[in-house]
């Protein structure tokens, strides 16, 4: 009986904890969204931080990211093509490639890549700022941390993920064409027809929204996790661990919901 009560109590505490985290994250997002629309938020310094964030998140790693996405794309395209040939479904190879790679796998891998590289860095930086009182110092100087530190990172993160996923998708399309039809332009018409069939407004809008949500997840969650850090230096790794776990679950949840909306 005592064990049952303790288990229920523990489960209740966990649920309450998750609810609090979820509530705090959405409250933060609401505040950020309102400030995003506020004209006074946008000044030289804010734009500067957005540019820096896009540079560090997307531009600085562009060559590595492109190499990584091309290798993955080439492998997946090869698997799809060989399987399609085995089953006599070559006519569907290009459609399959676009649906699997461009719409699902590449945005998902882009989000994971950015989460591991930039999300973890943002989480650590915000946690250290919290522990070292840097946020209090900014508040004392009436430099609002939301406008100066957090909002530009979120905007930069969303822009970076959308751009990188778009770039990876375009390079995968090119690679798919070359793998299926070779360097000839003979396949241009059927390939573009397949693309036009798949990329209707709903799919393109859904892809953009999904990438934007990925971008938000890899920046918003690390920021809120960093802000939750108690003012103790040894809690910084714990904060990053928690933040990155939440980012992973959020990315998976966004992908699952997107798949369910499209195919169920």
């Amino acid at each position, binding site marked *: 009986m005592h064990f049952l009560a303790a288990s229920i109590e523990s489960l209740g505490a966990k649920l309450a904890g998750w609810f609090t985290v979820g509530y705090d994250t959405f409250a933060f997002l609401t505040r950020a969204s309102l400030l995003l629309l506020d004209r006074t938020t946008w000044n*030289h*310094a804010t734009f500067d931080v957005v540019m820096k964030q896009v540079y560090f998140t997307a531009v600085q790693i562009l060559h590595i990211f492109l190499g990584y996405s091309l290798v993955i794309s080439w492998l997946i395209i090869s698997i799809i093509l060989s399987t399609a040939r085995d089953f006599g479904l070559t006519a569907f190879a290009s459609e399959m490639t676009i649906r699997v790679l461009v719409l699902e796998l590449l945005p998902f891998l882009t989000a994971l890549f950015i989460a591991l590289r930039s999300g973890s860095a943002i989480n650590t*930086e915000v946690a250290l*700022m919290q522990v070292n009182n*840097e946020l209090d110092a900014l508040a004392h100087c009436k430099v609002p941390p939301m406008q100066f530190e957090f909002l530009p990172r979120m905007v930069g993160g969303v822009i970076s993920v959308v751009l990188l996923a778009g770039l990876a998708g375009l390079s995968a399309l090119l690679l798919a064409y070359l793998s299926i039809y070779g360097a000839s332009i003979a396949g241009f018409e059927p390939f573009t027809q397949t693309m036009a069939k798949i990329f209707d407004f709903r799919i393109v809008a859904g892809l953009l929204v999904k990438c934007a949500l990925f971008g938000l997840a890899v920046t918003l969650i690390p920021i809120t996790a960093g802000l939750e850090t108690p003012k103790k230096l040894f809690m910084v790794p714990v904060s990053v661990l928690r933040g990155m776990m939440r980012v992973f679950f959020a990315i998976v949840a966004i992908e699952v919901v997107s798949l369910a909306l499209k195919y169920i």
Partner: protein
Amino acid sequence: MTAVAALSDDVARVALELPLRANLSALDNIALIPLYQRHYGVSESTRQAGAILDQLGHPEIAPLRDPDMTPAQRFVAKLARALILKRPRLVIDRPGAMLYDVPYPEFIQQLAAQDAMSGIWEIFDFSWNRDLYNQALHSE
């Protein structure tokens, strides 16, 4: 200490628990204030920040980030940040906690004696350090 921390918004504080942004240079830390509060452009804000460091006699710290500064340089950067806030009162909170590498009453006195410095700087310190200030005043 609690009383100092609870000072109103018209006070600019220089304190150990109000650090500089670690990933920004001293100049950028100071330039943030005109950039955000007065909406100046980047170049004008940087010019104003540089001018304050010049007035304090420490222009060499402009490109340094917090971890690369000595305690005295860090103090100067914090002081410059407090000065550029242009608040009616400036409070230096327990300078001994920040200036442990220099004889600090003399050091603060030298900074305050720079030509362009004006206003009153209030120092909050432990009572047992009173002799240090007396010595500095008598050595003038």
